């Protein structure tokens, strides 16, 4: 299937571009709009953006690779952001990150977001999530989970799996006391 930007997305992009004195100033907003629609920024999206704004694709690639909020690949159903900054680090977030990675078969030493092979989880080690008082903090999609422990993390992962009906064997509801 050939890649195309639907009409309504392109209209949205055009409106964004008009808000700036120079088209290139709109580049970050345009990328956000495309990511919102497509789920990630593909090479096609980079090239389309460059054409749209009169840039060279390398100019757009620089931005996409610089800002961590832009995704180059589709993310898993659950985006786990584990805080790596000072308060959380002191409260054990690095161990949590390692634990999650190992559980999901990911490499804790690898920089950047990683997605589990089943496509369910994307794990990202991020800077301060601005809830340092309740360290260590993990965000699962848009929900914040505070003062996390290894046990709570395990429970969180199971909950997520459960929501998708891909639960592991055993009685999750009984083990953790929640409704599947």
């Amino acid at each position, binding site marked *: 299937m050939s890649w195309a930007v639907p009409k309504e997305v392109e209209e949205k992009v055009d409106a964004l571009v008009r808000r700036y004195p120079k088209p290139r100033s709109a580049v970050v907003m345009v990328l956000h709009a495309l990511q919102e629609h497509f789920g990630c920024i593909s090479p096609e999206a980079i090239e389309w953006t460059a054409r749209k704004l009169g840039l060279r694709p390398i100019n757009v690639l620089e931005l996409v690779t610089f800002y*961590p909020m832009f995704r180059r690949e589709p993310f898993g159903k659950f985006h786990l952001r584990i805080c790596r900054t000072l308060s959380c680090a002191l409260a054990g977030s690095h161990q949590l990150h390692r634990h999650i990675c190992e559980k999901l078969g990911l490499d804790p030493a690898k920089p950047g977001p990683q997605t589990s092979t089943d496509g369910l989880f994307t794990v990202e080690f991020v800077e301060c999530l601005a809830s340092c008082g309740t360290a260590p903090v993990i965000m699962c999609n848009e929900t914040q989970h505070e003062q996390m422990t290894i046990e709570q993390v395990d429970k969180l992962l199971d909950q997520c799996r459960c929501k998708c009906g891909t639960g592991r064997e055993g009685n999750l509801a009984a083990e953790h006391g929640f409704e599947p």
Partner: protein
Amino acid sequence: MKQSQQSNDPLAAPPGMISVTVDGRTVLVPRTMPDWQGRQVPTTMLQACELAGVTVPHYCYHPKLPVAGNCRMCLVEYGVPALGPDRKPMRQPDGSLVIKKSPRPAIACATPVSPGMEIYTSTPTVKLMRQSVLEFLLINHPLDCPICDQAGECKLQEYSVEYGRASSRFVETKVHKNKQVDLGPRIMLDQERCILCSRCIRFTRDVVGDDALGIVNRGSYSAIAAYPGTTFDNNYTLNTADICPVGALTSKDFRFQMRVWFLKETMSLCASCGTGCNIVIGSRENRIYRFTPRQNDAVNSCWMCDYGRLNYRWIERADRLTNPGGTKLTKPDWEDAINGIAAGLKQTIPGHIAIVASARLTNEELYLVRRLAQFLGAPTDCAPRSGPADNLLLCADRNPNTKGAQLLGIAASLPGANLPVFARLIRNGTIRSLLVFGEDVTRHGIAPEDLARLDFLVASDIHSNGTTMISHYFLPGCAHVEKRGSFTNVHGRIQKFEKAVDPPGLARPELYWLSELVCRVTGQSVGRTVESVFEAMRAEVPAFRNIAWADLEDHGVATSV
């Protein structure tokens, strides 16, 4: 009293000037200086320091590129005159200014000077800042100097020796990146060596107009890249290897060929087009290893094109002519060849002889051809050579000295216009003798069958060619890198070049045997050195009248015509 105090007063500089103090030495600097495009902009601390004879180490700053201010190597401390409550500069009892030292350092490359400013480049703080910048740059640096082509001309090496720490305190694991990125057909990138100064990005974007490179990723993973699937391929890419302060960008042609400290450097010119970019030839043991641009703001700034830079391999080709020869020469001997040619020329009749001389010959050589032509009554011309021009340096005229040939009256006003006429006159038997210096006329409209009708055919060239092969006498000439002389570029600038390597075998500079021939045939000597021929040329040819060889210096002189 007031008067004398004012004359020493840093705030009372002459109009258009600013007085600043660099490491205790007060200098007058212009208020504005040319930026990378030559526009007048406020003078920077770095420029002022240079004028004061103080070097400020720098990586990202390059006088011919827009200022980026990203490497921080040029940090200095400074102070400005303190203002009193009346908003007037405060003075010490002795009348000197009270200087308020800035609590923060500034990057010298991007900070303009102001009247009375004091710049400190050798304080303990500045030394510590330089040391720290270097320490940061070296955190992830692979330190592979022993296998790095830049070693010996690397700013990271030089500054580390001069300003760096002796040992590394970094015990963590270095970030590894790609050491062999094939950026384009002529450039290889080692991302680990890159210090992210962005010179290469700015050069190709702002000077060439090909915004092909960028920095991808972030933090210590940042790396120079071209967009995946594209290549860095314009006619100026190799300049990025020159301006890259480290060994990140290397020339595929030169990498791993020779350590730079072994290279002999010779001041020369590129001979591949009429622009005449100034170059340095790097050679060792009579072999050429590279051409690099030499700054001349009147011609090529700091750049040269890839086409001209790589156009040197033919010098070593196996089919070089290495001795005199020809169907009438019994043994490959210069004396016999010159005797034979001189005797032949004495029998020629004006109006029945013509000369084709290459616009690749030097002014001096073409002047000797002119002397011969005048004496023999021979019409002359050059063989034109052209190719597509670009908007930076490369010129459509691919001969280095067409202008010189025109000023000396060798080339027709439209170079090459006489060649079809010569061909016709040979065919109808009017032209009986032809001298061809440095060209193959069979590739310029005079067929071998026509040449075969001539009573007397003399040719010279660097390689064996269709004309030398059937000539009665041929002489082995020299590439410009094998001799001295001058060219006149398309804009009428006369520039000289020096000899880098010896010619092969018995090949001799054209000047050497042309002066001999002129002497034998005309009975007049113009000497046998480039200087003596230049002097004679100057006395005779108006375009060169006001110019002495010594005036040419490193950057040449524009002719008045």
